[in-house]
């Protein structure tokens, strides 16, 4: 990476349908702006969050995993 190029992490976000996913929608309604390098996967509950999902996301090359619920 050159010095001018800032590190842009790719982030996979697993968001609970009932809270954080709704909050992400609300951020849209409020037109809050954030960087596009975050991809949301909707899950029915953070209880659904299998460790395998996190490992697979890293294997897929993401730099960070965010689980929220």
């Amino acid at each position: 990476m050159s010095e001018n190029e800032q590190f842009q992490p790719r982030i996979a976000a697993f968001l609970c349908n009932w809270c954080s996913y709704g909050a992400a929608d609300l951020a849209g309604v409020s037109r809050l702006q954030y960087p596009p390098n975050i991809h949301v996967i909707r899950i029915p509950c953070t209880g659904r969050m299998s460790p395998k999902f996190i490992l697979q996301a890293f294997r897929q090359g993401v730099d960070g995993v965010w689980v929220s619920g």
Partner: protein
Amino acid sequence: MDLDKCIACGACSDKCPKRIPNEYNEGLDKRKAAYVRYAQAVPLKYGIDAENCIYFQKGKCKACQKFCPTGAVNYDQQEEVRDIKVGSVIISAGFKPFDPTPYVQYSYANFPNVVTALEFERILAASGPWMGHLVRPSDEAEPKKIAWIQCVGSREVNTCDHPYCSAVCCMYAIKEAVIAKEHSHTDLDAAIFFMDMRTFGKDFERYYEGAQEDGVRFIRSRIHSISELEDRSLQIEYATEDGQARMETFDMVVLSQGLETAPETIELCQKLDINLSPGKFISTSCFEPVTTSRPGVYVCGALAGPKDIPLSVMEASAAACAAAGKLSSARGSLAQEQEFPEERPVAGDIPRVGVFVCSCGINIAGVVDVEAVAEYAKTLPYVTYVRNNLFSCSQDTQDKMAEVIAEEGLNRVVVAACTPRTHEPLFQETLVNAGLNKYLFEMANIRNQDSWVHSGDPAAATEKAKDLIRMAVAKAALLAPLQEVQLEVTPGALIIGGGVSGMNAALNLAAQGYTSHLVERDNALGGNARSLRVTAQNQPIAPYLDELRERIEAEPLITVHLNTTLKEGEGFVGNFKTTLAGDSGEEVVEHGVTLICTGAGEYKPNEYLYGQDPRVMTHLEIDQAVLGGELDLSEVNKAVFIQCVGSRDPERPYCSKVCCTHSVESALAIKEANPEAQVVILYRDIRTFGERELLYKEARSKGVLFVRYDLEHKPEVKATDDGLLVTVRDHVLDRDLLIEADLIGLATAIVSNRSNDLAQMFKIPMDSDGWFLEAHQKLRPVDFATDGVFMAGLAHYPKPLEEAVAQAQAAVARAVTVLSSKEMMLPGTVAFIDQRKCVGCGVCWTVCPYQAITQDDKGLAVVNEALCKGCGTCVASCRSGAPNLRGFTNQGVMAQIMAL
């Protein structure tokens, strides 16, 4: 604004040139004349504020109409007056926060850093004027010291004439202080100036204690004045409990404003001929807490007296129950059955995925290159059809999509548009109309979570839309059609506990036309209320209980089981089966819903000479003795009441809520019977919340003495030759008082029955104090996470009789939502177990929060689909990979991740 056409894109607001103070943020920032009041509005539709709109006021502008992509702006709309025929009316007009502007003593109007609690609420909110950053209005600097002043517009008759307590301000002030500390970048010094701390609700006392541990300062005081310093900080002069004058400077002051009824609501009530209470709330009886003086008109929420959210929600269901009772014969008479085409079998077919990319007018297409995205979608595996819609949710597009699904033989559908949280049901209905199972659907959220939040970077937003569609398609290809299980509903209830809550529940269910079994372990109905003398409105309780018993006896829909306990229970919503054990042997009862009304008990202390001296009695014992004629209050000359006996201590860190009012009632009854009697109440905080404060005031005016003590210096009781002697440390005089007594009343705690068997039988949780734990403390106060089980009364938390009645009515309203359908459909997104992989280790049934998994006769796990809520905790926890979750399968989520 044409609500059918508005897609809430916000273009009107964006282009509107008129800026006015935003009332949602209490005027702390600005909004446009074309606006949506707040981001969470339902339905999410914009409106035009004609009073501030340039076109309406000056005849020119129309910017919003010009830029609206759907033609929703219509300036010709007129106010319509419509007549609606109804059988009942519910008034839920709420309260108005007390406005301190006209009162000089609060210094609100002149000092910018004196804010109301509601303004502070908006300052703390992420959707507020400073996005949740803690700042003070004068210079937008972060305050390091904030003071809250309690009872602003409450418990005050000198100028603003509100003698009542507003019941919610202590709790919200603590909450604001705690959250402010969390938002602060420094170690915020938060101080609450109060008279009595009234944290009487469920888990509130713990919250109060937690705040003290977090360093929030609680200063028992009276405020003298607030003055402003040169740097706009504020100097508070106050008097402490022991009469010392003190002074302290704060960066900001929050006024904990009370609740009052709006003048226009008072006018409405007068127009409707509805009686108001002294505090100008709608007056109701303790026995019928949601019924107004006008037949057929019901009330709920803070309009019937100051109250918090849980109780308002409870009353809302109660009012629905009361309002529907008389109308039950008309239930369903206006409902229409919908018909759907037969479902096309697709199992085993190669996936044919149709992708619909929505432009949402310019909402998506204005940022995302939808055509490029649609082209890209065509290249994805299994995608056989792609189409770009201008508005996917419009009716004509829906019809077109149904046609396309049939014509193209699509068997999976992906819509890339807004959010599944609002639009999934709509598109699923389109699938059903096209003969496709509704679970063969997936959404890609390219508006709320893409175009709207990355509007400054169209190229990246377009790439992200492609990613999201690729992920959705990968999951969609693996979707399977799911079946929804249909359950028959047994149209009757089991009510456990025959106290005031259980009796009211049975009668209200009967009024709605449903049968119930009312089970009581004692030999008579009535519960704790049999030992109670009067309500907080001084209405005698015994005749009320007699009337309830008579009505129950005369009611053919109610079967009473006395001397009966529960032996075992099984089943789930709609289909419970419970074995009762009574005098005449065992009986199996089938019921669709279960109402837990098991009540609570009275704490029996081992202090203050209780049990050793007959003149030391508990509340219920005094009431019972008066009712039974063994105690004549006119013969009481010197009475002392000791509050918080067994409550608010380390063993029971909760407030029992009813005892302050009860002692005040008893004190007043003694004063009534013998005006010369000396009555002293030893208290820690007097918690006569709401209009009960008037009783407290009356007691003081009649000469009842109130002496405060604290937990470190509890009163002591001694028996002497002349009678009982109570020693207590007085905080005002700072010395010990010796008080003689011929009667000591102990305000003992209300304690849980700790019915563990019941908790297990009906799969309902209990908190550490032994109270049953509702599905959501604020929003679902009578439901459990387990469907079909509801609760009312003291089993939930200590409460006065009127709240128990309201909760019973609320539980009935909730129960009727189950009982009123002959059968119910369960969602298809539930867990299932592949028993070939199951080893019966038990992890899944241990972690299942709904106790939906049991062990079958082979020792392996099996899911009860009626109990499963589809959370997937079992799937994540199993080491053998035996469980899977329909709709969110391991394979489906993995496919999504691999398409990242």
